[in-house]
C-alpha cells in the first residue's frame, strides 16, 4: 500500500475527504498532520506549516482553515486502534501509538494515573501524525565514511527532531545489511526498534526495507533489547534510535565489549550540543564512537552538515558537501 492510502485509511471520513485530491507525490512531501480539538488542522510539508481549506487546498490564511472537532479525533483514534483502544493501553502510556508502516502518532489528552503510575490517556485533545518516509539510498553517499574494511565504524547520528534522523538510520541499516556492490559485502544487523519507527513493524514483521540480514526486536526497550540481541542473534552490528538514558549507555558498553559495532542516533544540533549533555559527553570523552554524522534541515530533511572523526574530532568533510 502507498503512504497516502495507508494514512487515509486511519483518518475519520471528514478529515479523509480533505486529502482525496492531493496527488500521491505531493502527499509524500507531508511530514506531519496535526489535529487539535476546535483548532485548525495543520500540515508540515517541506519544512513549512500550512492550514488546509475545506476543499482540500493548502493555505497560510487562518480564516480559511479547516477546523478539527472532537468527533474527528475520536473517530480517527478508533480507526488507528482498529476500534480497539483497549488493546493499546501499553502504547498509550508512552504517549504515542505506531501505525502499520511505522507512522507514529503522538497523542495528548487527560492522563489517567493509577497507584502513582500512568495508566492511559483519555479524552484526547490533540494528535500529531508523523508520516514515516523510507527514502532508499538517502544514506548512499554517507555510507563510504561509515565502513571500515569488512566492518563498520561505531557511528552516532546527531540531528534535531524532524531532520530525517530515523530515515537516515533506516537506510544505513539497509546498506550495512544488504551490502553495496564493489564496496561492502553486507553483515548481520540487529535492530532494537523501541518505537517501531525504524522497521515499521506490523505484527512483528518489518514493513520497511531494512535489509536481508536484519533482525528487528520490535517495541522492546533499548537497553534490554541490545542485550537480548547479543545473546540471541549474534549480530555484527546493533542499531538503535534516540539514545540518551544512563541505562542505554551501560548497554552500549556491553555491546562494545562483545565486539559488536553500533549505529545510534541522538537528538542534538551539533557535536558541541551533545558534549553539553552529561550522559552523552561521557561517550564522546571515552572516544567510544568513531564517526559522528551531523544532520540538519538546511536543504531539506537529511542534509548532512558534517561527518566527524570520533577519535581526533576532525571534520572529514572539510567544507565539502555530500
Amino acid at each position, binding site marked *: 500500500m502507498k503512504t497516502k492510502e495507508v494514512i487515509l*485509511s*486511519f*483518518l*475519520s*471520513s*471528514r*478529515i*479523509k475527504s480533505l486529502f482525496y485530491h492531493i496527488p500521491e507525490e505531493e502527499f509524500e512531501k507531508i511530514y506531519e498532520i496535526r489535529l487539535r480539538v476546535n483548532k485548525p488542522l495543520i500540515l508540515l510539508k517541506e519544512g513549512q506549516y500550512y492550514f488546509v481549506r475545506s476543499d482540500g487546498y493548502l493555505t497560510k490564511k487562518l480564516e480559511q482553515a479547516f477546523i478539527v472537532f472532537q*468527533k474527528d479525533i*475520536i*473517530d480517527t*483514534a*478508533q*480507526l488507528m*486502534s*482498529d*476500534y*480497539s*483502544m*483497549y*488493546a493499546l*493501553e501499553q502504547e498509550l502510556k508512552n504517549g504515542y501509538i505506531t501505525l502499520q508502516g511505522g507512522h507514529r502518532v503522538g497523542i495528548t489528552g487527560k492522563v*489517567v494515573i493509577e497507584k502513582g503510575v500512568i*495508566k*492511559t490517556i*483519555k479524552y484526547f485533545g490533540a494528535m500529531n501524525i508523523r508520516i514515516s518516509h523510507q527514502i532508499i539510498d538517502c544514506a548512499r553517499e554517507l555510507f563510504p565514511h561509515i565502513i571500515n574494511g569488512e566492518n563498520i565504524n561505531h557511528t552516532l547520528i546527531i540531528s534535531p527532531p524532524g531532520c530525517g534522523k530515523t530515515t537516515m538510520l533506516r537506510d544505513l541499516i539497509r546498506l550495512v545489511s544488504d551490502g553495496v556492490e564493489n564496496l561492502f559485502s553486507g553483515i548481520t544487523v540487529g535492530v532494537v526498534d523501541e518505537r517501531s519507527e525504524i522497521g515499521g513493524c506490523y505484527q512483528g514483521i518489518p514493513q520497511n526495507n531494512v535489509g536481508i540480514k536484519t533482525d528487528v526486536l520490535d517495541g522492546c526497550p533499548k537497553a534490554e533489547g541490545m542485550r537480548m540481541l547479543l545473546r540471541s542473534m549474534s549480530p555484527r552490528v546493533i542499531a538503535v534510535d534516540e539514545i540518551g538514558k544512563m541505562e542505554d549507555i551501560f548497554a552500549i558498553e556491553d555491546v562494545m565489549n562483545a565486539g559488536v559495532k553500533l549505529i545510534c542516533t541522538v537528538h542534538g544540533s551539533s557535536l558541541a550540543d551533545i558534549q553539553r549533555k552529561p550522559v552523552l559527553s561521557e561517550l564522546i570523552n571515552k572516544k567510544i564512537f568513531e564517526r559522528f554524522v551531523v544532520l540538519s534541515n538546511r536543504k531539506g530533511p537529511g542534509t548532512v552538515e558534517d561527518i566527524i572523526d570520533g577519535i581526533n574530532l576532525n571534520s572529514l568533510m572539510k567544507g565539502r558537501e555530500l
Partner: protein
Amino acid sequence: MIITGTAFIGYLFDRFELYRMKDLENIKRALLFLKGEIDYMIASLPVAMEEVGSRVGTNIGKIFSHVGESMKNKRGYSAEKLWKESVELYKDSTYLSKEDINNLLALGTALGYLDKEMQKNNIDLLLVYLEDEINRLKLHRHKNGRLYKTLGFLGGILIVILLY
C-alpha cells in the same frame, strides 16, 4: 375454521415471546464471548466481532459479523455508526422489541474508544438488562403461556357462539 384461527393466534403470541427470549439469550451469549475476547484474548474489535458472530450464528450473530466486516473496511466511520448500521440492517429479522433494540444501540456509543475496564462495564450494563428481561419473560411465559393458547381457543368458541 374460526376456532383454529384464534387458537393459532394465541399460539403465536406464546411463540413470539419464546423467540424473543431466544434472541435475548443469543445476545447474552454473544456479549459474554465478546467480553472474553476483549479481556483474555485482547483481540482487536473487528476480529472479536467476527469471531463472536460465527460462534453465535443465527440473525443475532449476523449483527456482530457484519459490524466486524464493516470495521475491517476502514471507511472512516465511528464504531457507533457502524454498530447502528448493522443493528438497523438485521433488526427486522429478529423478534426484539423496540426497547431491546434501543439498549442494543446504546452499546455502540462506547464501543472501541474506551479502555478495557470501560469496555467491560459497557458490556455489563447491557448484560444486566438482558438478564432482567430474560428472567421476566421466563416468568411471564410460565404464567401466561397456556393462558394465551386457552384464550385463543375460547375466544374462537365465543366468536362462533355470537355469530350463530
